């Protein structure tokens, strides 16, 4: 039982400790790149939104994290 719980704890620490990359504010050079923007093609985004709305009767919910320089 004790070994099992230790194993569980170690697995959880490993999963959480290594699963997320902590990007520091001064390391956001690549995230700040134009190609990292989710909506770099506004026309394409509008077309996808229209298709999504007319086929699925749904819209929005496209917001994702990731890009941007995180400045200010």
């Amino acid at each position, binding site marked *: 039982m004790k070994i099992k719980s230790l194993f569980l704890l170690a697995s959880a*620490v490993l999963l959480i400790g290594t699963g997320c990359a902590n990007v520091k504010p001064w390391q956001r050079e690549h995230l700040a790149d134009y190609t990292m923007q989710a909506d770099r093609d506004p026309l394409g985004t509008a077309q996808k939104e229209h298709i999504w709305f007319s086929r699925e009767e749904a819209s929005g919910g496209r917001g994702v994290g990731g890009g941007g320089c995180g400045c200010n």
Partner: protein
Amino acid sequence: MNTSLLKKSLLAALLAGTFLTARAELKVGDTLPDLASFKLEGKLPDSLKGKIVVVDFWASWCLPCAESFPVLDELQKKYGDKLVVIGVNVDEKASNMDKFLKKHAVSFTLVRDSGQKLVAAVSPETMPTSFILDGEGKVRFLHSGFHGEKTHKEYASEIESLLK
């Protein structure tokens, strides 16, 4: 499976994760580490003792940094010998910095923290971040980000207050 054990394990792991990623940020009242000990590229002023110093951390990919440059340059020109503005570039590639400086030429001191050691030691919470130091090298004011005229006015009044 014991669910309470699982919950405890996850909580412990989360706490450990939070602790391990916690950063020691340079705050108002702290003393800036000795810049000369960080092997920065570029020439630092011979002595900063007794001078008001603005240390600004910036990167070429940061738009507010570009906005802040003319303001910092103007302050350097206005206060002359009484003030030393030091721009610390944190770009991974020197070529990006050079390209940026061709567009945004300034007269104040510029150095490059190529190993990102100084910036890691100071751990600013955003880009740009500037520290205004008194004559003893102690951080008296801190600016996270650059917010146009508002920050410009704050810089001027803070520098004036330190010069009195």
